[in-house]
């Protein structure tokens, strides 16, 4: 193809325990901003952001869901026909990592078979040493890098540690996902098709498989 490719839409959903920083990650990605006291999300919030990766322009259509367990019954509507998911946990909160495991499992069981999933351990700034050194503040981190990497390797996920506060690695998550989403899949789901109801989009199912092993970490 010699003509410029039009922006392709990628439906993306954020999942993870309450207060791990889902909305903050989206805010950082979409507006390059951070709020010290981001309000809890009630229901879900929708945002979009374009992102250019090499030759391609991807328009992310992002559903930021509410993290509290009670809202879990609303989540399937958002991930059911998503092409990508970001499962977030807080590296200072072990319970949030357990919850992330559950989300990954649920996605594998219920979401589209070829969904691209990124596992993201957020709030990296909290474990960082103050004096810009490479070291980490001791005792703050509760989920090791290895635990995250292992889960990602087991389940075939992308893996990142991020900070919505310092913006560390945030864009990389979306670039990583964009790289992993096969061109065909994103082309197959034009915006119209995507927006059509919350039903399973078979066209995304049919395209591409076996990309799960391409872990960038």
């Amino acid at each position, binding site marked *: 193809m010699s003509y410029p490719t039009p922006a392709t839409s990628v439906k993306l959903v954020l999942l993870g325990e*309450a*207060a791990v920083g889902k909305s903050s990650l989206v805010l950082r990605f979409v507006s390059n901003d951070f*709020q010290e*006291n*981001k*309000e*809890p*999300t*009630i*229901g*879900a*919030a*929708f945002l*979009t952001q374009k992102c250019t990766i090499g030759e391609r322009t991807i328009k992310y*259509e992002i559903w930021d869901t*509410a993290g*509290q367990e*009670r*809202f879990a*019954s*609303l989540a399937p*509507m958002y991930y059911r026909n998503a092409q990508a998911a970001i499962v977030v946990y807080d590296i200072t909160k072990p319970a949030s990592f357990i919850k992330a495991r559950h989300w990954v499992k649920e996605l594998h*069981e*219920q979401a589209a078979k070829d969904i691209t999933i990124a596992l993201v351990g957020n709030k990296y700034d909290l474990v960082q040493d103050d004096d810009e050194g490479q070291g980490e503040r001791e005792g703050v981190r509760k989920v090791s890098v290895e635990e995250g990497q292992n889960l990602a390797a087991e389940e075939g996920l992308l893996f990142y540690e991020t900070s919505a506060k310092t913006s560390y690695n945030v864009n990389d998550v979306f670039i990583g996902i964009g790289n992993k989403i096969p061109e065909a899949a994103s082309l197959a789901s034009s*915006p119209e098709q*995507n*927006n*059509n*109801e*919350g039903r399973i989009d078979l066209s995304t199912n049919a395209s591409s498989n076996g990309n799960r092993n391409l872990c960038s970490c």
Partner: protein
Amino acid sequence: MSGIPKEFRGIIWQLVSKSKNFQLEEFYLHLKSESSIHEKAIKRDLSRTSFFTNVEQVNKAQELFNVIKSYSLFDPDVGYTQGMIFIAIPLIMNMSEAECFSLLVTLMKEYRLRDLFCPEMKGLHLMLYEFDRLLESYSPVLYNHLVKQGIKSSMYASQWFLTFFAYKFPLDIVLRIYDIIVTQGMESILKFAVNLMLKNEASLLSLSFDNLLEFLKDKLFNIYVHEEFINFKDDSTKRSSGSRFSLLPSSKSSNSTTTTGSAIKGQYYKLDSLVQDSMKINLDPVELTKYENEFENIYNNEKSKVDDIKQIKLENGNLRHKIKELETNYAKLNMDHIEIVQEMVDLKVTLPDVINDNEDLTNSIEQLKCDIQALESKMSESPSTSTSDINSKALPVEIENNIQELLKVNAEETERAVNLEEELSTLLEEQNTLEQELKKYSKSGGWFSWGKKA
């Protein structure tokens, strides 16, 4: 109709809802001192609700915490759900914490707000369904447009119902909505919701997915901004969507801007029109019951379908697991098989050699057996000769010594015998001589005779 005066709001809400309950208030004082498993989450969310970082009444934060925590203890099935804080904020601003608790309990139980927050959130789904049906009947065009755009009411209206519009909308409006809910029941929130959609119909019809969601999130009330502020409209929308909890800031901003204009306090929004328009929406109880029944059917169908799907998926998963297991087993068996075949081929190749070797070895063994027998028979002879040899060497010394000794003794005895014979013969000679002498003497007369004895 201008709503309940600010000073009496708290009291009137309590009176109308009949929430005043001394027993409950007393119980509250007891609950307040207990600890709840939801404490952390409540504290966390309170600190994230910038209402409290902005407001002068910071002490209300502690009161609000007490109320929400106590409710989580009072109703453990519901516990704490995000959204409750937003419901309770307008309450705590108008009454004491014990009264606030009592009214919250009343809203939850008597007004059935509880159904919205309970684990399956069935009440929320019912309300969304009723909203859809109402919208469909009031404006099929708008309803269809939204369906076409793939927008479901749960995507934007969940937060309206879960927080009585307090999540994203200005406090002035929220308080007026509370006035109506308390006096007319929870369903009246549907009137506000449908009215807002209808009043914004033209704008909504012109928008597509992304912009629709954006608009539905926090721009619906702009239509009720007082004409005098229309010039500032863009500015104020920015402000209210930019600041996190728009309950207070917007009323404040209206105050500051009105000083230049007509100076009607709190009249940034045409609240009376909002209420009047909303009340025109007719909620026929028969229709509502019909909707509820429909919903019940759909809900149950959906649920059994979901259960079925879950069951099937589970079975499917198990089967897939089994298949995988079988496949790996099969692969393993296949490998074993190949190995065994290979071994067999190897064996067949080496078998003649082995047979030859075997024959050679058998022969060798025969040979060896013969040798062994021969050796054995030799061995059985040699032991006796060797023993006699040993004896002939051991015994002779002794025996010869004995013999030598005996021979010596014998020689001595023989000598003695010879000597004795010589003595005897000498003695016999002497006797002869003596006899002759005797005869001579007897002839000459001798006294005795030896004759008889010879």
